[in-house]
Protein backbone atom coordinates (compact mmCIF):
# COMPACT_ATOMS: atom_id res chain seq x y z
CA UNK A 1 0.00 0.00 0.00
CA UNK A 2 2.71 2.52 0.97
CA UNK A 3 5.60 3.32 -1.36
CA UNK A 4 9.23 2.70 -0.47
CA UNK A 5 9.77 6.44 -0.05
CA UNK A 6 6.89 6.77 2.39
CA UNK A 7 8.17 3.85 4.44
CA UNK A 8 11.71 5.26 4.45
CA UNK A 9 10.44 8.52 5.91
CA UNK A 10 8.20 6.65 8.34
CA UNK A 11 11.08 4.57 9.76
CA UNK A 12 12.89 7.71 10.97
CA UNK A 13 10.72 10.74 10.29
CA UNK A 14 12.69 14.01 10.06
CA UNK A 15 11.52 16.93 12.21
CA UNK A 16 9.82 14.73 14.80
CA UNK A 17 9.70 16.07 18.34
CA UNK A 18 9.08 19.25 20.31
CA UNK A 19 10.61 22.71 19.61
CA UNK A 20 12.02 24.94 22.33
CA UNK A 21 11.30 28.57 21.72
CA UNK A 22 8.57 27.93 19.14
CA UNK A 23 6.57 31.04 18.44
CA UNK A 24 3.78 29.13 16.67
CA UNK A 25 2.28 25.89 17.89
CA UNK A 26 -1.00 24.22 17.01
CA UNK A 27 -2.86 21.00 17.50
CA UNK A 28 -5.57 19.30 15.48
CA UNK A 29 -7.51 16.26 16.71
CA UNK A 30 -9.76 14.35 14.32
CA UNK A 31 -12.71 12.83 16.15
CA UNK A 32 -13.53 10.13 13.60
CA UNK A 33 -10.08 8.57 13.27
CA UNK A 34 -8.68 9.67 16.63
CA UNK A 35 -5.56 11.10 14.93
CA UNK A 36 -3.86 14.00 16.74
CA UNK A 37 -1.25 16.19 15.06
CA UNK A 38 0.89 18.92 16.65
CA UNK A 39 2.92 21.36 14.54
CA UNK A 40 5.51 23.79 15.93
CA UNK A 41 7.60 26.43 14.16
CA UNK A 42 10.10 29.13 15.03
CA UNK A 43 10.67 32.25 12.92
CA UNK A 44 13.22 35.04 12.68
CA UNK A 45 12.30 38.72 13.06
CA UNK A 46 11.28 38.83 9.41
CA UNK A 47 8.72 36.00 10.04
CA UNK A 48 10.69 33.46 8.02
CA UNK A 49 10.43 29.91 9.35
CA UNK A 50 13.78 28.81 10.73
CA UNK A 51 12.73 25.48 12.16
CA UNK A 52 9.62 23.26 12.22
CA UNK A 53 8.73 20.14 14.18
CA UNK A 54 5.77 17.86 14.66
CA UNK A 55 4.32 15.27 17.00
CA UNK A 56 1.68 12.81 15.82
CA UNK A 57 -0.60 10.12 17.14
CA UNK A 58 -1.74 8.66 13.86
CA UNK A 59 -1.25 6.31 10.99
CA UNK A 60 1.83 5.97 8.81
CA UNK A 61 0.28 8.53 6.48
CA UNK A 62 -0.30 11.04 9.29
CA UNK A 63 3.26 10.78 10.55
CA UNK A 64 4.79 11.03 7.08
CA UNK A 65 2.50 13.90 6.02
CA UNK A 66 3.48 15.82 9.17
CA UNK A 67 7.17 15.21 8.54
CA UNK A 68 6.91 16.25 4.90
CA UNK A 69 5.12 19.47 5.83
CA UNK A 70 7.80 20.41 8.32
CA UNK A 71 10.57 19.63 5.83
CA UNK A 72 9.00 21.90 3.24
CA UNK A 73 7.97 24.95 5.26
CA UNK A 74 11.46 25.89 6.48
CA UNK A 75 12.42 29.04 4.59
CA UNK A 76 8.85 30.15 3.93
CA UNK A 77 7.35 33.25 5.49
CA UNK A 78 4.33 32.96 7.73
CA UNK A 79 2.36 34.83 5.09
CA UNK A 80 3.25 32.08 2.64
CA UNK A 81 2.23 29.44 5.15
CA UNK A 82 -1.23 30.96 5.29
CA UNK A 83 -1.75 30.17 1.61
CA UNK A 84 -0.92 26.46 1.94
CA UNK A 85 -3.48 23.71 1.55
CA UNK A 86 -3.34 19.91 1.62
CA UNK A 87 -2.00 19.73 -1.94
CA UNK A 88 1.27 21.19 -0.57
CA UNK A 89 1.75 17.86 1.17
CA UNK A 90 0.20 15.47 -1.35
CA UNK A 91 2.31 16.98 -4.15
CA UNK A 92 5.44 16.38 -2.14
CA UNK A 93 4.86 12.77 -1.12
CA UNK A 94 3.09 9.88 -2.83
CA UNK A 95 0.53 8.83 -0.24
CA UNK A 96 -2.06 6.27 -1.34
CA UNK A 97 -5.27 7.89 -2.55
CA UNK A 98 -7.36 6.56 0.32
CA UNK A 99 -4.92 8.03 2.84
CA UNK A 100 -4.48 11.49 1.37
CA UNK A 101 -7.21 12.94 3.58
CA UNK A 102 -4.71 13.06 6.48
CA UNK A 103 -2.88 15.90 4.73
CA UNK A 104 -5.82 18.11 5.72
CA UNK A 105 -5.33 17.20 9.40
CA UNK A 106 -1.74 18.43 9.17
CA UNK A 107 -2.77 21.67 7.44
CA UNK A 108 -5.43 22.19 10.13
CA UNK A 109 -2.74 21.86 12.80
CA UNK A 110 -0.53 24.26 10.86
CA UNK A 111 -3.36 26.80 10.63
CA UNK A 112 -3.83 26.66 14.38
CA UNK A 113 -0.07 27.18 14.74
CA UNK A 114 -0.26 30.23 12.43
CA UNK A 115 -3.11 31.66 14.50
CA UNK A 116 -1.01 31.06 17.59
CA UNK A 117 1.94 32.82 15.93
CA UNK A 118 -0.12 35.95 15.20
CA UNK A 119 -1.61 35.91 18.66
CA UNK A 120 1.86 35.71 20.12
CA UNK A 121 3.07 38.46 17.79
CA UNK A 122 0.16 40.71 18.71
CA UNK A 123 0.80 40.02 22.34
CA UNK A 124 4.47 40.81 21.87
CA UNK A 125 3.69 44.05 20.04
CA UNK A 126 1.14 45.02 22.66
CA UNK A 127 3.65 44.35 25.39
CA UNK A 128 6.27 46.36 23.54
CA UNK A 129 3.86 49.28 23.09
CA UNK A 130 2.82 49.14 26.72
CA UNK A 131 6.40 48.95 27.74
CA UNK A 132 7.24 52.02 25.60
CA UNK A 133 4.29 53.91 26.99
CA UNK A 134 5.30 52.97 30.47
CA UNK A 135 8.78 54.18 29.74
CA UNK A 136 7.54 57.54 28.40
CA UNK A 137 5.21 57.86 31.34
CA UNK A 138 7.99 57.04 33.69
CA UNK A 139 10.28 59.58 32.03
CA UNK A 140 7.62 62.27 32.22
CA UNK A 141 6.86 61.41 35.78
CA UNK A 142 10.56 61.57 36.59
CA UNK A 143 10.86 64.91 34.91
CA UNK A 144 7.93 66.19 36.92
CA UNK A 145 9.33 64.82 40.08
CA UNK A 146 12.73 66.29 39.26
CA UNK A 147 11.12 69.64 38.57
CA UNK A 148 9.15 69.54 41.77
CA UNK A 149 12.22 68.55 43.65
CA UNK A 150 14.10 71.44 42.11
CA UNK A 151 11.39 73.87 43.02
CA UNK A 152 11.20 72.54 46.49
CA UNK A 153 14.92 72.77 46.84
CA UNK A 154 14.77 76.38 45.67
CA UNK A 155 12.02 77.10 48.16
CA UNK A 156 14.01 75.64 50.95
CA UNK A 157 17.08 77.54 49.84
CA UNK A 158 15.16 80.78 49.79
CA UNK A 159 13.68 80.02 53.13
CA UNK A 160 17.05 79.29 54.56
CA UNK A 161 18.43 82.47 53.03
CA UNK A 162 15.52 84.39 54.41
CA UNK A 163 16.08 82.86 57.78
CA UNK A 164 19.74 83.56 57.53
CA UNK A 165 18.94 87.11 56.51
CA UNK A 166 16.63 87.46 59.45
CA UNK A 167 19.19 85.93 61.70
CA UNK A 168 21.78 88.33 60.31
CA UNK A 169 19.44 91.31 60.84
CA UNK A 170 18.71 90.33 64.38
CA UNK A 171 22.39 89.70 64.97
CA UNK A 172 23.23 93.10 63.57
CA UNK A 173 20.40 94.61 65.59
CA UNK A 174 21.70 92.88 68.67
CA UNK A 175 25.20 94.06 67.92
CA UNK A 176 24.02 97.67 67.55
CA UNK A 177 22.02 97.39 70.73
CA UNK A 178 25.02 96.11 72.60
CA UNK A 179 27.05 98.89 71.09
CA UNK A 180 24.56 101.48 72.10
CA UNK A 181 24.16 99.96 75.53
CA UNK A 182 27.91 100.29 76.02
CA UNK A 183 27.54 103.99 75.33
CA UNK A 184 24.82 104.10 77.93
CA UNK A 185 27.28 103.04 80.57
Amino acid at each position, binding site marked *: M*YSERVLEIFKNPPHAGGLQGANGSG*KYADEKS*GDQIRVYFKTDDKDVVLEARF*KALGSVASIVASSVLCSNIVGLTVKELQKLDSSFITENIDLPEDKQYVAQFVINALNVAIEDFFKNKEKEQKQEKESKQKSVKAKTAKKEVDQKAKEYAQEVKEKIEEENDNKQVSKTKQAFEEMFSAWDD
Partner: protein
Amino acid sequence: MRRVYLDNAATTYLSQEVINEMTPAFNVMYGNSNSIHSFGREAIALVDRARDRVAKAIGANSNEIYFTSGGTEANNWAIKGIARANKENGKHIIVSKIEHDSVIESCKALEKEGFEVTYLNVDSNGLVSLAELMHEIRKDTILISIMAVNNEVGTIQNLKAIAKTAHENGIIFHTDAVQAIGNVKIDVNDMEIDVMSISAHKMYGPKGAGALYIKNGVKCENLIDGGTQERGRRGGTLNVPAVVGFGKAIEIAVRDIIVNQQKIKTIRDYFVRQINARIPYIRVNGHQYQKVQGILNVGFEMVDSEALVTMLDLEGIAVSVGSACTSGVAQKSHVLEAMKVPEEYIKGSIRFSFGRNVSKDDIDYTLDRLTEVVSKLRAISAVTKTGRAK
Protein backbone atom coordinates in the same frame (compact mmCIF):
# COMPACT_ATOMS: atom_id res chain seq x y z
CA MET B 1 15.90 -10.39 8.59
CA ARG B 2 13.87 -12.87 10.61
CA ARG B 3 10.25 -13.23 9.53
CA VAL B 4 7.63 -14.03 12.14
CA TYR B 5 4.01 -14.73 11.25
CA LEU B 6 1.59 -13.87 14.04
CA ASP B 7 -1.55 -13.35 11.97
CA ASN B 8 -3.00 -16.85 11.96
CA ALA B 9 -6.51 -15.57 12.58
CA ALA B 10 -6.28 -13.93 9.14
CA THR B 11 -5.07 -17.11 7.50
CA THR B 12 -2.75 -20.04 8.11
CA TYR B 13 -0.19 -21.92 6.10
CA LEU B 14 -1.21 -25.25 4.59
CA SER B 15 0.05 -28.22 6.53
CA GLN B 16 2.00 -30.78 4.51
CA GLU B 17 -0.60 -33.42 5.24
CA VAL B 18 -3.22 -31.21 3.62
CA ILE B 19 -1.01 -30.46 0.61
CA ASN B 20 -0.40 -34.17 0.11
CA GLU B 21 -4.12 -34.87 0.26
CA MET B 22 -4.90 -32.13 -2.26
CA THR B 23 -2.23 -32.86 -4.85
CA PRO B 24 -3.93 -35.68 -6.78
CA ALA B 25 -6.98 -33.47 -7.23
CA PHE B 26 -4.89 -30.98 -9.22
CA ASN B 27 -3.57 -33.21 -11.95
CA VAL B 28 -4.68 -36.80 -11.47
CA MET B 29 -8.32 -36.76 -10.38
CA TYR B 30 -9.08 -33.38 -11.88
CA GLY B 31 -12.55 -33.88 -13.31
CA ASN B 32 -15.48 -31.56 -12.71
CA SER B 33 -17.32 -33.04 -9.75
CA ASN B 34 -20.62 -32.37 -11.55
CA SER B 35 -19.71 -34.39 -14.64
CA ILE B 36 -21.26 -37.81 -15.11
CA HIS B 37 -18.22 -39.50 -16.67
CA SER B 38 -15.49 -41.36 -14.77
CA PHE B 39 -13.32 -38.27 -14.32
CA GLY B 40 -16.27 -36.52 -12.76
CA ARG B 41 -17.13 -39.51 -10.61
CA GLU B 42 -13.56 -39.63 -9.28
CA ALA B 43 -13.80 -35.97 -8.36
CA ILE B 44 -17.19 -36.31 -6.65
CA ALA B 45 -15.84 -39.22 -4.65
CA LEU B 46 -13.10 -36.93 -3.35
CA VAL B 47 -15.68 -34.27 -2.58
CA ASP B 48 -17.94 -36.73 -0.76
CA ARG B 49 -15.06 -37.99 1.33
CA ALA B 50 -14.28 -34.41 2.30
CA ARG B 51 -17.94 -33.88 3.09
CA ASP B 52 -17.97 -36.90 5.39
CA ARG B 53 -14.90 -35.56 7.19
CA VAL B 54 -16.45 -32.15 7.72
CA ALA B 55 -19.69 -33.71 8.95
CA LYS B 56 -17.88 -36.02 11.36
CA ALA B 57 -15.75 -33.15 12.70
CA ILE B 58 -18.82 -31.17 13.76
CA GLY B 59 -21.24 -33.99 14.64
CA ALA B 60 -23.50 -33.51 11.62
CA ASN B 61 -24.84 -35.72 8.83
CA SER B 62 -23.03 -35.56 5.51
CA ASN B 63 -26.17 -34.44 3.70
CA GLU B 64 -26.26 -31.38 5.93
CA ILE B 65 -22.91 -30.05 4.65
CA TYR B 66 -22.80 -27.68 1.67
CA PHE B 67 -19.46 -26.48 0.36
CA THR B 68 -18.92 -22.79 -0.33
CA SER B 69 -16.01 -20.57 -1.34
CA GLY B 70 -15.35 -19.68 2.28
CA GLY B 71 -16.73 -18.22 5.47
CA THR B 72 -17.93 -14.94 3.95
CA GLU B 73 -20.09 -16.72 1.40
CA ALA B 74 -21.39 -19.11 4.05
CA ASN B 75 -22.40 -16.21 6.29
CA ASN B 76 -24.08 -14.34 3.45
CA TRP B 77 -25.98 -17.46 2.49
CA ALA B 78 -27.06 -18.26 6.03
CA ILE B 79 -28.31 -14.79 6.95
CA LYS B 80 -29.97 -13.92 3.65
CA GLY B 81 -31.14 -17.45 2.86
CA ILE B 82 -32.81 -18.08 6.23
CA ALA B 83 -34.37 -14.61 6.37
CA ARG B 84 -35.87 -14.81 2.91
CA ALA B 85 -37.07 -18.40 3.29
CA ASN B 86 -38.84 -17.72 6.57
CA LYS B 87 -40.21 -14.25 6.05
CA GLU B 88 -43.83 -15.41 6.18
CA ASN B 89 -43.20 -16.09 9.89
CA GLY B 90 -41.71 -12.69 10.58
CA LYS B 91 -39.06 -10.21 9.56
CA HIS B 92 -37.04 -9.67 12.72
CA ILE B 93 -33.43 -10.84 13.07
CA ILE B 94 -31.13 -10.63 16.09
CA VAL B 95 -27.34 -10.53 15.79
CA SER B 96 -24.62 -9.13 18.03
CA LYS B 97 -22.73 -5.89 17.45
CA ILE B 98 -19.45 -7.80 17.22
CA GLU B 99 -20.29 -10.12 14.33
CA HIS B 100 -17.99 -10.38 11.34
CA ASP B 101 -18.65 -7.81 8.62
CA SER B 102 -20.07 -10.52 6.35
CA VAL B 103 -22.91 -10.96 8.87
CA ILE B 104 -23.34 -7.25 9.64
CA GLU B 105 -23.38 -6.23 5.97
CA SER B 106 -25.78 -9.06 5.10
CA CYS B 107 -28.11 -7.72 7.78
CA LYS B 108 -27.79 -4.20 6.37
CA ALA B 109 -28.73 -5.55 2.94
CA LEU B 110 -31.78 -7.27 4.45
CA GLU B 111 -32.81 -4.05 6.21
CA LYS B 112 -33.12 -2.52 2.73
CA GLU B 113 -35.53 -5.36 1.89
CA GLY B 114 -37.73 -4.46 4.85
CA PHE B 115 -36.29 -6.72 7.53
CA GLU B 116 -35.67 -5.35 11.01
CA VAL B 117 -32.41 -6.18 12.74
CA THR B 118 -31.52 -5.85 16.41
CA TYR B 119 -27.80 -5.60 17.10
CA LEU B 120 -27.20 -6.85 20.62
CA ASN B 121 -24.73 -5.17 22.92
CA VAL B 122 -21.87 -7.11 24.43
CA ASP B 123 -20.18 -6.65 27.78
CA SER B 124 -16.62 -5.46 28.28
CA ASN B 125 -15.38 -9.02 27.69
CA GLY B 126 -17.26 -9.35 24.43
CA LEU B 127 -20.01 -11.64 25.75
CA VAL B 128 -23.63 -11.43 24.68
CA SER B 129 -26.06 -11.17 27.57
CA LEU B 130 -28.74 -13.85 27.63
CA ALA B 131 -31.03 -11.52 29.51
CA GLU B 132 -30.74 -8.90 26.80
CA LEU B 133 -31.25 -11.53 24.10
CA MET B 134 -34.43 -12.76 25.77
CA HIS B 135 -35.62 -9.19 26.12
CA GLU B 136 -35.17 -8.51 22.39
CA ILE B 137 -36.91 -11.66 21.14
CA ARG B 138 -40.27 -10.86 19.55
CA LYS B 139 -43.11 -12.86 18.08
CA ASP B 140 -41.80 -12.05 14.59
CA THR B 141 -38.14 -12.97 15.27
CA ILE B 142 -37.09 -15.63 12.77
CA LEU B 143 -33.32 -15.80 13.12
CA ILE B 144 -30.65 -15.34 15.79
CA SER B 145 -27.02 -15.30 14.66
CA ILE B 146 -24.20 -15.08 17.20
CA MET B 147 -20.61 -15.96 16.33
CA ALA B 148 -19.00 -18.79 18.26
CA VAL B 149 -15.59 -17.10 18.65
CA ASN B 150 -14.90 -13.47 17.92
CA ASN B 151 -12.16 -12.99 15.35
CA GLU B 152 -10.72 -9.82 16.90
CA VAL B 153 -10.56 -10.67 20.59
CA GLY B 154 -11.10 -14.43 20.73
CA THR B 155 -14.02 -14.42 23.19
CA ILE B 156 -16.06 -17.66 23.17
CA GLN B 157 -19.84 -17.17 23.37
CA ASN B 158 -22.20 -19.32 25.43
CA LEU B 159 -23.52 -21.06 22.35
CA LYS B 160 -25.53 -23.79 24.00
CA ALA B 161 -27.46 -21.34 26.17
CA ILE B 162 -28.11 -19.02 23.24
CA ALA B 163 -29.28 -21.88 21.02
CA LYS B 164 -31.59 -23.15 23.76
CA THR B 165 -33.09 -19.69 24.15
CA ALA B 166 -33.64 -19.47 20.41
CA HIS B 167 -35.37 -22.83 20.25
CA GLU B 168 -37.59 -22.17 23.25
CA ASN B 169 -39.02 -19.40 21.10
CA GLY B 170 -39.13 -21.37 17.87
CA ILE B 171 -36.31 -19.32 16.30
CA ILE B 172 -33.58 -20.63 13.98
CA PHE B 173 -30.06 -20.30 15.41
CA HIS B 174 -27.02 -19.68 13.20
CA THR B 175 -23.45 -19.34 14.33
CA ASP B 176 -20.36 -18.15 12.48
CA ALA B 177 -17.82 -20.75 13.64
CA VAL B 178 -15.01 -19.68 11.34
CA GLN B 179 -12.62 -18.94 14.22
CA ALA B 180 -13.91 -21.73 16.41
CA ILE B 181 -13.19 -25.02 14.64
CA GLY B 182 -9.90 -26.44 15.80
CA ASN B 183 -9.87 -24.13 18.82
CA VAL B 184 -12.98 -25.21 20.72
CA LYS B 185 -15.02 -28.39 20.50
CA ILE B 186 -18.11 -27.85 18.40
CA ASP B 187 -20.89 -30.42 18.12
CA VAL B 188 -23.92 -29.10 16.29
CA ASN B 189 -26.29 -31.61 17.86
CA ASP B 190 -25.09 -31.27 21.40
CA MET B 191 -25.11 -27.47 21.05
CA GLU B 192 -28.42 -27.43 19.14
CA ILE B 193 -26.97 -25.37 16.31
CA ASP B 194 -29.26 -25.18 13.29
CA VAL B 195 -26.95 -23.51 10.78
CA MET B 196 -23.19 -22.97 10.96
CA SER B 197 -20.49 -21.33 8.82
CA ILE B 198 -17.00 -22.81 8.59
CA SER B 199 -13.85 -21.88 6.67
CA ALA B 200 -10.81 -23.97 5.76
CA HIS B 201 -8.03 -21.44 5.70
CA LYS B 202 -8.11 -20.67 9.40
CA MET B 203 -7.17 -24.25 10.26
CA TYR B 204 -4.16 -24.97 8.06
CA GLY B 205 -6.36 -25.64 5.07
CA PRO B 206 -6.57 -23.88 1.71
CA LYS B 207 -8.16 -20.53 0.97
CA GLY B 208 -11.26 -20.65 -1.20
CA ALA B 209 -13.13 -23.40 0.61
CA GLY B 210 -15.71 -23.32 3.35
CA ALA B 211 -19.01 -24.85 4.22
CA LEU B 212 -22.47 -24.08 5.47
CA TYR B 213 -24.01 -26.66 7.76
CA ILE B 214 -27.80 -26.58 7.41
CA LYS B 215 -29.68 -28.93 9.67
CA ASN B 216 -32.15 -31.07 7.77
CA GLY B 217 -35.55 -29.43 7.85
CA VAL B 218 -34.33 -25.84 8.24
CA LYS B 219 -35.66 -23.64 5.43
CA CYS B 220 -32.93 -21.66 3.70
CA GLU B 221 -33.15 -20.11 0.23
CA ASN B 222 -30.30 -20.41 -2.24
CA LEU B 223 -27.83 -17.59 -2.51
CA ILE B 224 -26.14 -18.65 -5.72
CA ASP B 225 -28.34 -19.99 -8.47
CA GLY B 226 -27.34 -21.51 -11.77
CA GLY B 227 -26.19 -25.06 -11.21
CA THR B 228 -27.24 -28.37 -9.73
CA GLN B 229 -24.16 -28.63 -7.53
CA GLU B 230 -24.59 -29.22 -3.81
CA ARG B 231 -27.93 -30.93 -4.36
CA GLY B 232 -29.22 -27.91 -6.22
CA ARG B 233 -28.66 -25.56 -3.32
CA ARG B 234 -25.42 -23.83 -4.35
CA GLY B 235 -24.57 -23.34 -8.03
CA GLY B 236 -21.00 -23.27 -9.30
CA THR B 237 -18.23 -25.76 -10.00
CA LEU B 238 -16.61 -26.82 -6.79
CA ASN B 239 -12.96 -26.07 -6.20
CA VAL B 240 -12.28 -29.76 -5.71
CA PRO B 241 -8.64 -29.54 -4.55
CA ALA B 242 -9.61 -26.88 -2.00
CA VAL B 243 -12.58 -28.92 -0.79
CA VAL B 244 -10.36 -31.99 -0.45
CA GLY B 245 -7.85 -29.91 1.51
CA PHE B 246 -10.65 -28.59 3.69
CA GLY B 247 -11.79 -32.11 4.57
CA LYS B 248 -8.28 -33.13 5.58
CA ALA B 249 -7.62 -29.89 7.48
CA ILE B 250 -10.75 -30.12 9.60
CA GLU B 251 -10.05 -33.76 10.39
CA ILE B 252 -6.57 -32.83 11.65
CA ALA B 253 -7.80 -29.72 13.47
CA VAL B 254 -10.34 -31.64 15.50
CA ARG B 255 -7.93 -34.53 16.08
CA ASP B 256 -5.18 -32.21 17.39
CA ILE B 257 -7.33 -29.67 19.19
CA ILE B 258 -6.07 -30.38 22.71
CA VAL B 259 -2.38 -30.55 21.82
CA ASN B 260 -2.54 -27.39 19.72
CA GLN B 261 -4.42 -25.41 22.32
CA GLN B 262 -1.97 -26.45 25.05
CA LYS B 263 1.03 -25.45 22.98
CA ILE B 264 -0.48 -22.14 21.98
CA LYS B 265 -1.55 -21.45 25.56
CA THR B 266 2.06 -21.78 26.69
CA ILE B 267 3.20 -19.34 24.01
CA ARG B 268 0.41 -16.90 24.74
CA ASP B 269 0.85 -16.90 28.51
CA TYR B 270 4.58 -16.26 28.11
CA PHE B 271 3.92 -13.45 25.66
CA VAL B 272 1.39 -11.76 27.95
CA ARG B 273 3.70 -11.99 30.97
CA GLN B 274 6.54 -10.47 28.98
CA ILE B 275 4.60 -7.57 27.48
CA ASN B 276 3.16 -6.72 30.87
CA ALA B 277 6.66 -6.67 32.32
CA ARG B 278 8.30 -4.70 29.53
CA ILE B 279 5.74 -2.24 28.17
CA PRO B 280 3.67 0.14 30.31
CA TYR B 281 0.22 1.52 29.49
CA ILE B 282 -1.16 -1.54 27.73
CA ARG B 283 -4.44 -3.41 27.99
CA VAL B 284 -5.39 -6.95 26.99
CA ASN B 285 -8.82 -6.79 25.36
CA GLY B 286 -11.28 -9.66 25.67
CA HIS B 287 -12.30 -12.27 28.20
CA GLN B 288 -9.60 -13.43 30.57
CA TYR B 289 -10.74 -17.07 30.57
CA GLN B 290 -13.51 -17.72 28.07
CA LYS B 291 -11.31 -17.27 25.04
CA VAL B 292 -9.39 -19.21 22.42
CA GLN B 293 -5.69 -19.30 23.12
CA GLY B 294 -4.56 -18.28 19.68
CA ILE B 295 -6.01 -14.76 19.55
CA LEU B 296 -4.53 -11.96 21.67
CA ASN B 297 -5.76 -8.42 21.26
CA VAL B 298 -3.65 -5.77 23.01
CA GLY B 299 -4.20 -2.02 23.23
CA PHE B 300 -1.14 0.24 23.44
CA GLU B 301 -1.77 3.77 24.69
CA MET B 302 -0.40 6.77 22.82
CA VAL B 303 0.23 4.98 19.53
CA ASP B 304 -1.77 4.25 16.40
CA SER B 305 -2.40 0.61 15.48
CA GLU B 306 -1.64 1.01 11.77
CA ALA B 307 1.66 2.73 12.55
CA LEU B 308 2.48 -0.04 15.03
CA VAL B 309 1.62 -2.84 12.61
CA THR B 310 3.69 -1.18 9.87
CA MET B 311 6.69 -0.68 12.15
CA LEU B 312 6.52 -4.34 13.12
CA ASP B 313 6.18 -5.32 9.47
CA LEU B 314 9.37 -3.41 8.70
CA GLU B 315 10.99 -5.66 11.29
CA GLY B 316 9.63 -8.78 9.59
CA ILE B 317 6.74 -9.36 12.02
CA ALA B 318 3.19 -9.87 10.73
CA VAL B 319 0.29 -8.96 13.00
CA SER B 320 -3.06 -7.34 12.36
CA VAL B 321 -5.05 -4.18 13.04
CA GLY B 322 -8.38 -5.61 14.21
CA SER B 323 -9.25 -8.02 11.44
CA ALA B 324 -7.76 -8.47 8.00
CA CYS B 325 -11.11 -7.77 6.41
CA THR B 326 -11.26 -4.24 7.77
CA SER B 327 -7.61 -3.22 7.84
CA GLY B 328 -6.48 -0.59 5.35
CA VAL B 329 -9.48 1.59 6.15
CA ALA B 330 -9.35 4.31 8.77
CA GLN B 331 -12.17 3.17 11.02
CA LYS B 332 -12.19 2.15 14.62
CA SER B 333 -12.84 -1.48 15.47
CA HIS B 334 -16.60 -1.99 15.84
CA VAL B 335 -15.84 -4.91 18.14
CA LEU B 336 -13.72 -2.90 20.57
CA GLU B 337 -16.20 -0.03 20.44
CA ALA B 338 -19.06 -2.39 21.29
CA MET B 339 -17.00 -3.73 24.21
CA LYS B 340 -16.55 -0.11 25.36
CA VAL B 341 -12.78 -0.44 25.40
CA PRO B 342 -11.42 3.01 26.39
CA GLU B 343 -10.76 5.20 23.32
CA GLU B 344 -7.07 5.60 23.95
CA TYR B 345 -6.63 1.82 23.78
CA ILE B 346 -8.87 1.27 20.74
CA LYS B 347 -6.64 3.60 18.74
CA GLY B 348 -3.59 1.49 19.48
CA SER B 349 -5.06 -2.04 19.54
CA ILE B 350 -3.50 -4.80 17.49
CA ARG B 351 -4.20 -8.49 17.21
CA PHE B 352 -1.55 -11.17 17.62
CA SER B 353 -2.73 -14.62 16.57
CA PHE B 354 -0.38 -17.47 17.32
CA GLY B 355 -0.04 -20.57 15.21
CA ARG B 356 1.21 -23.99 16.05
CA ASN B 357 4.56 -23.50 14.30
CA VAL B 358 5.76 -20.40 16.15
CA SER B 359 8.97 -20.84 18.17
CA LYS B 360 10.18 -19.24 21.39
CA ASP B 361 12.90 -17.47 19.41
CA ASP B 362 10.22 -15.98 17.20
CA ILE B 363 8.35 -14.77 20.26
CA ASP B 364 11.45 -13.32 21.93
CA TYR B 365 12.42 -11.52 18.73
CA THR B 366 8.88 -10.12 18.52
CA LEU B 367 8.95 -8.97 22.13
CA ASP B 368 12.25 -7.15 21.64
CA ARG B 369 11.11 -5.40 18.46
CA LEU B 370 7.68 -4.62 19.89
CA THR B 371 9.21 -2.94 22.94
CA GLU B 372 11.44 -0.84 20.69
CA VAL B 373 8.78 0.26 18.23
CA VAL B 374 6.27 1.18 20.93
CA SER B 375 8.93 3.39 22.56
CA LYS B 376 9.80 4.93 19.22
CA LEU B 377 6.20 5.81 18.40
CA ARG B 378 5.49 7.09 21.88
CA ALA B 379 8.51 9.41 21.67
CA ILE B 380 6.91 11.27 18.75
CA SER B 381 3.31 10.93 19.91
CA ALA B 382 1.08 13.97 20.26
CA VAL B 383 -0.35 12.48 23.45
CA THR B 384 1.17 11.89 26.86
CA LYS B 385 0.21 9.19 29.29
CA THR B 386 -2.27 11.53 30.94
CA GLY B 387 -4.11 11.75 27.64
CA ARG B 388 -3.37 15.42 27.28
CA ALA B 389 -1.55 16.65 24.17
CA LYS B 390 1.99 17.84 24.74
